[in-house]
Each structure stands twice: as C-alpha cells, then as structure tokens.
C-alpha cells in the first residue's frame, strides 16, 4: 500500500452504542476507524486524502445519510461509500446505488459481511488511487515534451519506423533517433511496449 498507515474507515452513525460496537468490530481486522456522531461535522472535517472507505447510516436526525452520500459524490470524494440502514426499502436502495453508493447493507449487519465489504472497498479505493496517480504522472511527463517530440511520439505510436518518421517529418533518421532517445528519457519509458501502453491514450486524446 502507498500509505505507511493502514487504511482509515470513517464511520458515521448518530447512535453511540452502534458507533462504538461497529468501531470495535472493524478494529479487530486491523483497520483504523474514525467515528463521527454528526454528519455535518464529518463533512466539514474529514480527511479527503486518506485511503479507506466511508460507512454511512441512512437514518440520522437533521440530515439523511442519502443526502450526505449525494453531497460526497457531488464533491468528487473518491472513498467508496457503504450505506447502512435498519429498514431498507427497494426505493431507498435504488436511490443509494444511483447516487453512487458502493454497497448497501442492512442492520443488524453480520461481521463477516461488513468486514468483507470494507476490505473490498478499501482495495478498490487503493487501486483507483493508483490509477489516478499513474494518470497524473503520465500527463505531467507528456506535458514536458517539445512539439517536435510529441510529433515523433505520435508517429511511433502509429507504428512507423525511424526511417519512415524521418521521411514523414522531412528530417534525417539520425535526428529522429535523437528525438526518440530524448522522449523516452522524459517519459521514463523503459521499452517501446511500455511507452505505447502508457501514452497511446494521451497521444490520441491530443490529436
């Protein structure tokens, strides 16, 4: 995992007994838990950069868990949200999934089910964070290329040889060779296959 700390689960439920018991249960598998009694306070203060998941009770005084879910999604919070409810109706379940809930569990929830769901959610979050990180890295590296290098890269991705690229750009194959070495270095690519896998989408997106 990227973080030196173990994943953090945010648990939001207005009922103290429920909060404490679920926190204890989740803690037994080595996940850290931060429990919140007040959804507004949670929304204002929680660490959006942490790796983990959010467990949200549907029925809370003041603000519905579904509303909190919608606000989180609208804010582009990327932690998976698991909804908990005492009496789930089909309509409620439908709305939760439509709003972007990762999972919908009924209270009282069985330990194995809750813990499996949380582990899966955390793994999903780690993968998605890694993907976003890689994407950002690729975009930053691509931005460092010169206009000529981008042209060369486009032709490499299109499958042309150095000789063909030289003809297409009206330069000598040796010059192409120089551009090629430079862009490989800038993009941190170790092989042609890796270069194409990581940058093909960016090249196609920019033309």
């Amino acid at each position, binding site marked *: 995992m990227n973080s030196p700390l173990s994943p953090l689960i945010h648990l939001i439920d207005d009922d103290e007994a429920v909060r404490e*018991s679920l926190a204890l*249960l989740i803690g037994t598998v080595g996940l850290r838990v931060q429990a919140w009694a007040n959804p507004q306070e949670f929304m204002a203060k929680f660490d959006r950069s942490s790796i983990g998941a959010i467990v949200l009770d549907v029925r809370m005084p003041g603000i519905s868990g579904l509303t909190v879910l919608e606000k989180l999604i609208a804010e582009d919070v990327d932690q998976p949200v698991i909804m908990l409810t005492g009496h789930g109706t089909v309509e409620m379940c439908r709305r939760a999934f439509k709003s972007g809930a990762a999972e919908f569990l009924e209270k009282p*929830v069985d330990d194995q089910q809750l813990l499996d769901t949380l582990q899966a959610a955390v793994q999903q979050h780690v993968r998605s964070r890694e993907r976003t990180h890689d994407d950002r890295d690729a975009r930053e590296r691509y931005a460092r290329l010169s206009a000529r290098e981008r042209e060369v890269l486009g032709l490499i991705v299109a499958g042309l040889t150095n000789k063909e690229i030289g003809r297409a750009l009206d330069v000598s194959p040796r010059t192409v060779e120089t551009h090629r070495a430079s862009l490989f270095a800038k993009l941190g690519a170790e092989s042609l296959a890796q270069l194409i896998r990581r940058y093909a989408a960016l090249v196609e997106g920019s033309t």
Partner: protein
Amino acid sequence: MPQETSPVRVMLEYKGQQFVLQPGHVGSGWWRFDFRKRLAADSQPFDVVAMRNLDWTDLPWLKMLGWTLLTAAALAALLSLERQRAERRRAEELLRLGQVARLNTLGELAAGIAHELNQPLTAVLANTQAAGRLLDDDPPQLTTARAAMQRAAEQARRASDVVGRLRRVVERPDIAGRLQPVSLEAAVRNALYLLEPELRRLEVKPELGSTTATILAEPVALEQIIHNLLSNALQALAQVPAGTRTLQIEVHAIAGKGELTVRDSGPGIAADVLSRLFEPFFTTREGGLGLGLSLCESLASGMGGTLVASNHASRGATFTLQLPLAPAA
C-alpha cells in the same frame, strides 16, 4: 269537428276569386295561420286555402302549464340525484383517504419500530462478534472482549425496553371504561354501508338476519372489528367465481352474550393458518402487516368478549364475535 262550430275557414281560390267551402268562425284574433296548396289538376288550377285567426284565449294554457311543471320536476329530480351521487362519491373518497392515511401511519410506525429495534440489535451483534474475534486473538484480548460483552448485554436490555414501551402504547387498558350500549345490528349496517362500493364491485349481496341485540361495547372499537371481519370476508370472496359468492351475517342474543357471525363462501382458512390466525404479524397476504385480526381479537377481549374463527362444513370461513349484552334498561 262539426262544420258550424269549426274555427277554420276553407276556401278554393282561382285568380282572385274565392269559393268558400266552409265559412267557419275565424275569430278576430291577431295571429293568423293559413295554409295554401295548388291542386295538381292542369284543367282546374285552384288554390285550396285553409285559414284560422288565433287569440290568446285559444292557447292550451293548462296543458302548457302541466308540461312546464313536469319538466321542472324531472330536472329537479335529476339534479338532486346527481348531488346525492356526488355526496356519496365524496364520502367514499374520504373513507378511502382515511384508510390510506391509516396505512401510512402503520407504515411509519413499522419503520420507526424497525429503527428503534435495529439500533440496539446492531450493537449487540457487532459487540458479540467483535468479542468473539478478540478471544480468538493470540493472546486473547480478554479485557476488551469482556467490555464488549457487557455493552452487548446493555444493548439487549435497551431492545427489550423498546418492546416494553411499544406494548404499553399499543395496549389500551382504558377501553373497558368506555363501554356503552350499542345495537350490534346497527353497527353491522353502518359497516356494510361503508363497504357498499366494494360489495357492488364484487357483486356480493349481503344477507343480514332480522334479529338484533344490544351489547356493551366501545363504538369505535366495535366498528373496527366489524369492518375488519367484513373486509376479510370480501377479500376471501374475491378469490371465488362471482356467481358463488355469498355473505351471511347474523346477530343473535344467547346466554347473556350478543353474537355476530360473519360467514363467507370463500376458499376457507387452511388448517395450518387457522391455528395462527390471531398471531400478531402473521399474514398470508402479500404486503399484509398481519395486524388486522390480532388487533380485532385484542379489542374484543378488551371489551370482555371473544372472537373465534372456524371453517364451515361445506365451504367458506365463519368468524364469530361475542360481546356481553347490555343490561336491560
């Protein structure tokens, strides 16, 4: 009409010449009617003319008045019928709304109970399961596990408090204090009136015996029981073909008790269902709460009566409600 007294003059005309066939009393009225027709014979192209002068007194006043009155009466009757129908529709609508409102209240209540009970149950389950995991640890974390078990016990007590509170709300110990003499037969008629649209829709003609009994009951509770029994019977009848639907209702006074029997010709009650019929939350109906009959029975026993269900020998179910007779005034 004899020629001498006829008010019509008949003439033949030809190029301004007139030949009177019947002079008639044409009268001096200001309103002249005449009729001309050329005879079709080419040789004698006469015009036949019939004429009459009308006066106010010649009009058929009595008949006209009669007709006007008749039309007005028919119109009034139609309007009043329409008004009655509108009132009836409104009453039905109100009744339906009342039922929907009651259902919503029940739904809210059920959601509330679910939440109130699920919270402590969630805590009990999570605490005990966490304790189990803590004991499985190596070394077992005894102190934390023990604390979790203690919290689970507290939450189990909390759940039982919720149930106790709920029971105190649902039980109505004061119902016995509000008993008053009620005509059982009148209560049945009232319930039948409310269910009339349903009866008509199912083509059921209820057969109500002529005997009556005055019992001691709380009117609203009694109405609720009867309404429930009749709607159940109708729902049973809806499951059998229209021609075979009968609903027999009888009211008797026997041995100090007023007795109401409601018998339908529906499919009857399955044996395994019969024994659990009055259990709360037991239902055979899709989306049913399973509270109707259980409520009826507790209302009946709250008023010092009984409610019993049985299957009829031939077919259909019979519900028998017994309540104490009112002391003779």
